[in-house]
């Protein structure tokens, strides 16, 4: 072929030779004004995702005999990020020489976050939670991860009506969701079933009643050990829920202990609902039941440093590192968020059942999530620094 654009092909050739001089000239003619140091979209990313935040307790309030509400403000900024109601943060502190952290659902609303206020309802559930429940006081300082998690309403995925089922401290994300609905940031119709032993163990009842009176949600209290007028008695069964909603035409949001999930799942089974109809909040991965657990040596590389700590086979690698004073990244502690993603270098291990949230290639190339991994031998891993 003989390509020609202009009548004389050599004119086309000449144009080609100008490509470099043209570009050279254009680069030299750029403005000499200083290059930007800030970009709007990146500033927004930083506001929404600040990473680890420094926080201080501004109020402590007893909710029940097993639950305390802590209110926080940021000391490193004027506001918490706007978030999606239902999300959690992970709180981190030092207790008796160990670095400890736990995820907690946020009970305050996304709008309150912008006023530098964020509250967590903390139930007695382990080492750190017990400490927070009994000893945290106004002025105490902690680190907190940015709000995260997929346990929230999705406008394009979920049904207009949502049926929320709360057990124990599982009420906290739903309080945030009801507030967010009231504030106009969410569009669902919310029906909440809140199960507890008796009325005294219902946290946030006054707040929920006030929100219900304002039309933000409809709430049904279900007491298992107490019969009271105005309350349902027993458990949150399918039969009970069906009295209040067409269960084929709702999206379920469940937050509570594992036993509650198992119960509801069994109750809903006969309805043959699609997978997408039931959303469950993740629960923290705890210790494994092992008789006479062995203790192994865990070698941890963080950048160019090497640490060795004992690691019990009934505890996750993350817990072993924390006990040894090593700050390792973590958020959900449930195997799902991937924030603790680390390179496996050697040694047998077990992943907690049903919690292997790794990507396919992670398994292929030897990466693990220490928050749900138990050692079965001496192990060696490469962990990113906490921040």
């Amino acid at each position: 072929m003989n390509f020609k654009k202009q009548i004389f092909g050599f004119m086309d050739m000449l144009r080609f030779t100008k490509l470099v001089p043209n570009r050279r000239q254009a680069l030299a003619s750029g403005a000499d004004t200083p290059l930007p140091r800030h970009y709007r979209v990146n500033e927004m990313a930083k506001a929404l995702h600040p990473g680890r935040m420094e926080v201080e307790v501004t109020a402590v309030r007893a909710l029940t005999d097993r639950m305390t509400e802590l209110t926080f403000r940021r000391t490193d900024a004027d506001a918490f990020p706007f978030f999606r109601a239902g999300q959690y943060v992970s709180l981190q502190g030092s207790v008796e020489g160990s670095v400890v952290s736990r995820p907690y659902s946020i009970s305050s609303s996304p709008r309150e976050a912008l006023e530098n206020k964020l509250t967590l309802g903390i139930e007695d559930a382990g080492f750190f939670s017990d400490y927070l429940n009994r000893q945290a006081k106004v002025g105490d300082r902690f680190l907190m991860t940015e709000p995260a998690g997929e346990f929230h309403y999705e406008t394009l995925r979920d049904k207009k009506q949502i049926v929320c089922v709360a057990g124990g401290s599982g009420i906290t994300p739903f309080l945030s969701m009801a507030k967010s609905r009231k504030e106009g940031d969410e569009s669902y119709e919310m029906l909440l079933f809140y199960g507890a032993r008796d009325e005294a163990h219902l946290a946030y009842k006054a707040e929920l009643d006030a929100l219900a009176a304002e039309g933000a949600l409809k709430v049904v209290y279900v007491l298992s050990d107490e019969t009271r007028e105005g309350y349902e008695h027993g458990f949150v069964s399918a039969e009970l829920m069906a009295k209040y909603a067409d269960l084929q035409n709702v999206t379920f949001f469940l937050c509570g202990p594992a036993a509650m999930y198992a119960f509801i799942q069994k109750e809903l089974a006969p309805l043959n609902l699609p997978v997408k109809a039931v959303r469950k909040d993740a629960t923290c991965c705890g210790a494994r039941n092992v008789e006479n657990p062995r203790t192994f040596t865990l070698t941890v590389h963080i950048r160019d440093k090497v640490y060795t700590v004992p690691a019990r086979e009934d505890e996750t690698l993350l817990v072993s590192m924390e006990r040894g004073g090593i700050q390792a990244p973590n958020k959900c502690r449930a195997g799902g968020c991937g924030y603790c993603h680390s390179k496996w270098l050697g040694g047998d291990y077990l992943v907690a059942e049903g919690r292997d949230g790794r990507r396919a290639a992670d398994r292929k190339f030897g990466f693990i999530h220490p928050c749900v991994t138990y050692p079965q031998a001496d192990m060696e891993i490469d962990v990113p620094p906490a921040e």
Partner: protein
Amino acid sequence: MEKQSAKRYDVVVIGAGNGGLTAAIRVLQGGYSCLLLEKHNLPGGFATSFKRGRFEFEASLHELNDFGSPTEPGDIRTLFRDLGVEDKIDWVRIPEAYHLITTDKKYDCEMPFGVEAFIDKMEQYVPGSRKSMTEFFQLCNEVRDAQTYSNSVNGNTDSDYMKSHFPNFIKAGSYSVNEVLDALKMPKAAQDILNAYWCYLGVDCDRLSFLHYGSMVIRYITRDAWMPKMRSHEISLALDTRIRELGGDIWYHSEAASILTDENRAITGVQLTDGTVIETRHVIANCAPHLVFGKMLDKKAVTEAQVRATNARTFAGRGFTLFLGLNKSAEELGIKSHNYFIYDTADTARQYDLMRKVSTNHVQATVCLNNAYPECSPAGTCMMYFTTMFMSDDWGNVSETDYFKAKDRVAEDMITVFERETGCKIRDAIEEIAVASPTTYARYCGHPEGVIYGYETADWDSLMPRMMMMKEDAALCPGLRFAGGYAMRSSGYSSAYVSGDLSGRQTVGDLKKEAQ
């Protein structure tokens, strides 16, 4: 507790994106020590995956260009072979080139791989297009041969050799796609259908260099496209593994804050956001020159020429992607193609203009991965991702409190357009959904304004003069080279790998010269 002391490195690579990963391997293969720094806790940058419920979503890769089969490898498979990662990855071939739909002219065209098949199909859609299409591919072949020659002499081409062997390459070389297609007297409808790939380069065909487009199209059509089975995360981890095998170090969660220099503006090290200093005299930056010259280097170390050259350039598209996990199979939903381009208009310049604003942009490049790799999600489900770009900073107008709703609005529009144009009803099947906005891209990869395509390869800043000025551009800042979407080869997976290959090998050359 034991402690080791910090060591110095021959090269520090900033950013473990496709370019940075490749560059690190090349440095190590050259026999030099290398530290790869990454602010995120994963390698790959955009080349990653994430899980939601039963689905593992591909974060960004639509199809890997210029890959080819094991027996007829394209340039990228050959590169992966040289890097030592080809066999670490399970590959799957993409079945067809693309499915183009435009709202204005009602195009609905399914184009195959293979030059003859492509020309035959075009003749069916546009009778009388065969001659110009055949010439188009002849011209593209010459473009490819010229580039192969240029690469073989490291860009130091002999002008007389070029003129005698690749005259058409040179004669077409300064023109836009549309100028060349007009000169070939290609029927307008055939041009419209052929131009479908333009959004992969993010520049309309009035301003996109023919050489750039032609070299991409020929590589797609003759060598077809491939995907790793475990999403692009499989490539990124294979590269990570290879770096470790070669004795390199990778530090995740380790963001480089500044590049340190001495009084002669020579690079002396890299400082992390936590204050850690790593000594080195060579940096390969897998990030934007805007960040390096605007923030990471001390003001005193930045020359006027660097500032002018950086300011002269134009940011390319800001990314937006919707990910859907659907609880029905692609077959049940009627989704037949792997890869759809859906445009408002076949007029690429007009389309580009519509993409400046969030509210007027309805373009989507949409992939249903199951149609290339059925097992990518559980039986009875399928996965889709819909990508678009904004050709301005309009997304920056979104407020914090409107952020989640703004994402939903664009996502809903993408679903509406897909359903309207293909007739496939997907809305009720959504089991998992995730949305990445320019804010998300800015968050994970730090790119200014959430840009995913580096600098626009339009007009004077097109691919050819960039390649021809590679040496000259690098001379602006000794000791520093760029890799990734902002580098000389521009954006896209294949280009980013190639830029890392070039900058990695050139840095090895710099080190060898120093040693002499």
